[in-house]
């Protein structure tokens, strides 16, 4: 495929076009990803997550400076939500990163969630692969502004940075499951606001209760608008990477990820196959009517639908 060859040759427009094709679920999607797969696996993926307005985009912008200063090339995937009503979206993360727009070592792509609820979009992982194959050393993934439980990023990133702000609630919040469990590094952003020390202390206290692992997530105060604490954050990212590499954890994490991807691929194929059959043979309309009238129930109806499909013998 021409575009794939161009991407591997370093053509930015080909990269952008291929991301669109993959994101739109183009019929060529699998062919594209298959042919690029041997060129992936080299990039290191860093996830940035946190509440809306916590300063994720500004942190990404500042981190880009550090990374470029270290001579590394970077791909950025920035995710913002699509409307559940119209499907439209305002993708505004780029605003904070425009200083890097002309740097050929940086490629920034904004994406909508397009119905996904885990803080990323379905095409995020595939876009990471394209940026990886393109040759970026590092890939920064900025999630949508999250609440407590959108934790897909931890399945995608090698290092996950959770961004908190001083006014994030009392110490019970730090005990809750979900977002507080996935951090490899905590950032207390907007650390010029009152309450920073208390917030940092509460996170540290929460970490004291957890004694399972060799890596204790550092808590880094930062003021991203002024560039304070960014050096320390970059340092922490590098230390975490070093820890993962030396302990063999990185290899484990990546194998777990591949195993999950393989499972998902199989599930996806089965799902597509089943629905194709069901669409061909029958419509759901009359069943829905009957279930709505309580003449039927969805549980036995589902089993009956499946019973009518002849599965191909593998």
């Amino acid at each position, binding site marked *: 495929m021409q575009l794939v060859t161009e991407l591997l040759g370093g053509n*930015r427009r080909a990269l952008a076009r291929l991301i669109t094709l993959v994101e739109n*679920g183009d019929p060529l999607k699998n062919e594209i990803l298959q042919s690029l797969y041997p060129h992936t696996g080299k990039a290191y993926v860093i996830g940035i997550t946190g509440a809306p307005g916590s300063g994720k985009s500004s942190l990404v912008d500042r981190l880009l400076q550090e990374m470029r200063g270290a001579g590394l090339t970077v791909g950025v995937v920035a995710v913002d939500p699509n409307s559940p009503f119209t*499907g*439209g979206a305002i993708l505004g993360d780029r605003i904070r990163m*425009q200083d890097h727009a002309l740097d050929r070592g940086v490629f920034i*792509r904004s994406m909508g969630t397009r119905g996904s609820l885990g803080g990323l979009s379905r095409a995020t992982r595939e876009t990471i692969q394209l940026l990886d194959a393109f040759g970026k050393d590092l890939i920064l993934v900025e999630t949508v502004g999250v609440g407590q439980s959108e934790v897909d990023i931890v399945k995608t990133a090698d290092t996950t940075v959770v961004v908190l702000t001083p006014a994030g609630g009392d110490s019970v919040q730090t005990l809750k499951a979900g977002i507080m469990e996935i951090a490899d590094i905590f950032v207390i952003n907007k650390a010029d606001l009152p309450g920073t020390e208390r917030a940092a202390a509460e996170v540290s206290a929460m970490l004291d209760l957890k004694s399972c692992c060799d890596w204790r997530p550092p808590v880094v105060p930062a003021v991203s608008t002024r560039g304070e604490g960014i050096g320390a954050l970059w340092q922490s990212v590098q230390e975490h990477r070093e820890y993962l590499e030396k302990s063999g954890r990185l290899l484990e994490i990546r194998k777990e990820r591949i195993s999950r991807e393989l499972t998902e691929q199989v599930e996806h194929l089965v799902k597509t196959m089943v629905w194709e059959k069901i669409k061909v043979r029958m419509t759901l309309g009359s069943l829905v009517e009957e279930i709505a009238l309580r003449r039927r129930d969805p549980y036995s109806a589902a089993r009956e639908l499946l019973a009518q499909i002849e599965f191909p013998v593998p």
Partner: protein
Amino acid sequence: MDMSSKRKIRVLVAKPGLDGHDRGAKVVARALRDAGMEVIYTGLHQTPEQVAEAALQEDVDVVGLSILSGAHMTLVPRIKELLNERQLGAVPLLVGGIIPEEDALALKQSGCADRVFTPGDPLESIVSYIRDRCI
């Protein structure tokens, strides 16, 4: 509604140059969002190079410029030139703002702008123009 498999119209809304009035751009961005499009908004004070590069990286279907500074006769041709350099000459370039009629005509005749919208043009006309161009 399955939103995962459909192709979406992606629009870059950019404010090149030095004027700081982004109300209009935001209203247009919101209208396009409500029409189901993905709008990449780049914020104020963009250079022509930044606009062209964002259009390339985001692989947009349409570029919309909002210019209220009066510098449109410089900015629009320059952005068109930079889009051409990136093989993005086929991407429709729309301009909105305070653009005198003769300038609008000149921009269109020179092939720099595909369409110029001025105050008073209904938002629906922008939405439907983009929809028609992206079919």
